[in-house]
């Protein structure tokens, strides 16, 4: 199981990245996240909503409601320019971090 603290730092990036592919609703995002990570990311589903609402309040994503075929209201989220900028920065940050970690981990292996 993935360490929670590692997950907590990356959820904003993962959520924004999902929304960059297209507008989605909460349940759809959970399923996408599971499928793309090959079941590696399995969130407690309720925790996604405080993240989404927080991103919306910070002006990084927008939401709108549409009716489903059953006539049920469904809330979709869409990334905006501010969110895209943050995602770009987060991705760069992540690449630097992961490349540094790989170098260190790789160094340890070579030493063995």
């Amino acid at each position, binding site marked *: 199981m993935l360490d929670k603290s590692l997950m907590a730092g990356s959820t904003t990036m993962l959520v924004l990245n999902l929304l960059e592919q297209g507008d989605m609703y909460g*349940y759809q995002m959970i399923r996408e996240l599971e499928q793309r990570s090959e079941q590696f990311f399995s969130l407690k589903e309720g925790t996604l*909503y*405080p993240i989404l609402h927080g991103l919306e309040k910070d002006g990084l994503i927008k939401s709108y*409601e549409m009716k489903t075929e059953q006539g*049920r209201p469904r809330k979709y989220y869409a990334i905006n320019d501010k969110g895209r900028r943050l995602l770009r920065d987060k991705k760069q940050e992540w690449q630097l971090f992961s490349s540094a970690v790989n170098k260190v981990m790789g160094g340890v292996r070579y030493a063995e």
Partner: protein
Amino acid sequence: MPNNWLREAFIQSVVQRIRFKPARNAVMRELEDHLQEHTKAFIEEGLSPGEAEEKAVTCMGDPAAVGADLDRVHRPRIQWSLILPVLMLSFLGVAVLLNAELINPHLNTSPDLVKSIAVFLAGGLLAFCLYRLDYTKLKNHPWVLYFASLGILLATLLLGSPVNGVKVIQLPSIGSLKPDHLCSLLFVLAFLGFILKYQSQGLIGLVKMGLISAFSLLALLMFPSFSAMLITLLTYLLLLTTAIIKKQFGAQRWPLLLLMYGTLLLVSLLLLLSIDGYRLERLSSLLGSTDAIKSYPQYVISNLLQEARPIGASGYIASEGFSALPGSGSEYAFTTIIATMGWLAGMAVALIIGFFIVGMGMKALHIRTQYGFYMALAVLGLLGAKFLVSILAGVGLLAGGITGMPFVSYGAADCLIHMASLGLFLSVLRTDGYLQESIQSSSGGRIIKLEDGQLIISLHTRRNK
């Protein structure tokens, strides 16, 4: 079929932890949709409805933790960027009174000071009450607001006592109340409702708006209150210009703008031509800058400002005395600040006002609901126009239509009106995004449209599954 009680219990347990009640409905709808979708998926995998629902609820995690996180996210943020400038300007108003007494020991401003602080506290309470109010209730009653305003003006004209040629209402142990700026606020609030009511009628709607606004402006002018008329006119123009640019009266925005401003110009010219020479001279003196028609306040202001120092009292006060300054704590508050505290203090005030107005504008631009946006714009227009007029009058560029500087000037009625306006603005920010979220079918439709106060973006030509 599952009996849904597990799902309901989970949702209730989450939303009860969200203290900001306007956020609850949207959260309930969203969790309901999620749980229904997941339950359906588990049923398709072969679970019984009861098992499917139980498993879907378990997947959501701890409702207490989710509720606590949502409570934190939805807690209204205190708008310090707006409240702090207001507090600073209000303290400055008190400082103006205190400073006046220091410079001129014959003045006794203590009673004014006590009253000023009491009114500020009452204004704060009023702002808080309006902050908590669902301001959208006002939008369905534009005619009530409009006639209430006309009624107050008429009642004051019939029952009020004349002070300096203007009728005021005498209130025992409080003082006199001049209702023109209260009526200005009511007219503007009514105007917002009329925009929503007539926007779908295009040109006809715009003509109706023109007639309604013209009559209200005439009523304020006849009262007579040139300042309230001017402030109201500027706010109307801001609102209507924005509505036309946003194509709310139809796609033909440039012809409509031309028609609106052309009519305004024509009516103004006709009014100017219809008045006699003396009144024309008086009117020109409102904007006058020539020495021949310079008014007494303008003469004093020019002397005070010419001898103003960076810090401290103007040299003119030392030679002529403080009493030479007209309307020191109210209409000419800006002059008083420069004359008694120095022009650096004047620049600081202008900076605080600039920060406040720009902050309001930035926040207004991000408001999602249509009525909330216009309400914020109306408050911005009213306060912005008053700041502008009071600064122009304070440096002698405008001799008529003068008005108190919001939050700084001494004056009970004005203070309450300005605080009420701020309360309305904060109320819009508090509830924005939570009120009246509209829903549309997922099939077809325009990409972007404004529906019942909500910006609807339909990027979905494909199905989201």
